[in-house]
């Protein structure tokens, strides 16, 4: 996978962490938002045996799909000790996506959790098109 630097900003929220990410299309947006979450969460040094997992997710709508998508990546890290290196959306519609997720097993010598994101919330979740760009606003529970 070709890792890109995500385009996002951090929003202020007293309880949690909010981010606003952008993309040229839905594929770009979902990849970007995931990378923004990962960049916020984990500092990664090279190393470890990489593997790829394929995800297939359904959602009620784009916002729900985004919450489920990010939640799935979060679970891989928090629940399965798989440090996600990068993501690639293989296909996406407003209610379904397929993706490939590259990961390495968690290694405390290589991986530092900088910010413990505990959950992806539905609070103020927004996935919409503004000024020709797709935009996602997500609030995480810390």
């Amino acid at each position, binding site marked *: 996978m070709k890792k890109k630097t995500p385009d996002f900003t*951090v929003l*202020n*929220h*007293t*309880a*949690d*962490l909010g981010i606003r990410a952008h993309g040229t299309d839905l594929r770009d947006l979902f990849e970007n938002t995931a990378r923004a979450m990962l960049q916020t969460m984990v500092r990664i040094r090279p190393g470890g045996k990489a593997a790829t997992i394929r995800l297939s997710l359904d959602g*009620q709508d784009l*916002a*729900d799909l985004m*919450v*489920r998508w990010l*939640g799935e990546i979060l*679970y891989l890290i*928090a*629940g*399965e000790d798989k440090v996600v290196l990068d993501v690639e959306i293989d296909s996406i519609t407003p209610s379904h996506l397929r993706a490939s997720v590259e990961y390495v097993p968690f290694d405390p010598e290589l991986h530092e*959790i*900088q*910010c*413990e994101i*505990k*959950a*992806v*919330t*539905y*609070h*103020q*979740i927004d996935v919409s098109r503004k000024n020709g760009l797709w935009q996602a606003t997500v*609030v995480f*529970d*810390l």
Partner: protein
Amino acid sequence: MDMMDITLEKLDNYRWCIPRKGAMRVPGLIFSNPELIPSLKQDQSLKQVANVATLPGIIGHSLGMPDIHWGYGFPIGGVAAFDLDEGVISPGGVGYDINCGCRLMTTRLRADEIRPLIKDLVSALFKNIPCGVGSTGRIHLSKNDETKVAVQGAVWAVKNGYGDPEDLERTEDAGTMEGADPSVLSERAIKRGKDQLGTLGSGNHFLEVQVVDQVYDTGKAQAFGLWEGQITVFIHSGSRGFGYQICDDFLKEISAHMSGEDITLPDRQLACARIKSDLGRRYLAAMACAANYAWANRQILMHWVRETFLETLSVRPAELDMKLLYDVCHNIAKIESHTVCGERIQVCVHRKGATRSLPAGHKLLPEIYRDVGQPVLIPGDMGTYSYVLAGSEGAMIHSFGSTCHGAGRLLSRSQATKKAKGRFIENELKARGIFVRSRGKKTLKEEISEAYKDVSQVVEAVHGSGLACRVARLRPLGVIKG
């Protein structure tokens, strides 16, 4: 509803009303004081109180406690009670960290004895109490044992040698919530709970060695076993990844279910199910599992604190005499009896960053506190005081037996980190006589005192509004954070 539409009408120096408007089914009622009110208008917490007021079956008022601040869905410091037949249960109204709560322990030790040893004591606690981001501990549960923890709560911990049976009497619900059903849990929740029992966590979770700095009510303090100059220990922790996964699982299921319900939500995080529906029942059964896990967690942490004190200070158990004063939860939903319009009915009370507050004489109180009222524990931030209060009748009258849970955040973590840039927080605390150990590099900056409301004002508002009454003030001497 826009923030511009939110009006606050002052009822008295401690209560403000948000009049019913638009989709609100009931008015909002905010407990605060004139010093705290301006900060409420800086975030969206009042809008969230109004949003909660739109939920079906809500009774009385949508309530905001004095530490109220912007959460997700429900405000943090939000309380709402729902009719069992018409009303809803909302996982967001409980929170991700189900039964995040705290416990306070008393000792026979004096601060002047301990002060020379505080660095050693805190370092030993830091070594012995697993804490930090995603921390796993010394306990690795089999699926069978995890099921027992989910059903029995703190009872499981005591049965397995962590503490004494008398600890259970001094825990809310005796450390076990009825109705837990592990069969409704996902494999993911089970997996996340396997290795995290007996861990403190991170963020605003902490363990603090304190001194009783001031006693306000000598009679109640005596009943609670508190005296000036005494060493106490405060633990703040919850249900860890187990509770988070349970909330996450049910939020997703309930959100998907919303399209079939005739309920319009102003915020998707308020996703809810009818209390008496199958989905509502399953969430309550799962929530009880997480609540029990958290009580077992705090019971185990307390046991290790006792062991650490005995070993580090080389004292005998009778000299230490570390007793649990009380354990309260502050993220929970409970089926309780309350008087509404003169009639005694059962309601489902959601407390999201709010603490139960029962007055003297209440049947749910343990015998030892029945004449005094329930101990209410309000932790401050790591640099300031914590408080012990006693539940009052005012809470039963005005807030479904509820009060606040802490100081309430003013700044986001990134704002706090910015404010703390270039500062050595550890040294600042040391200069004030507080020795701190922290695993996370950013934690101390995120948790600076300026990030929180003035806890003494919050407690003043609690006391002034009659939700609970001040008993004692505790000052930190040593803190460990994840």
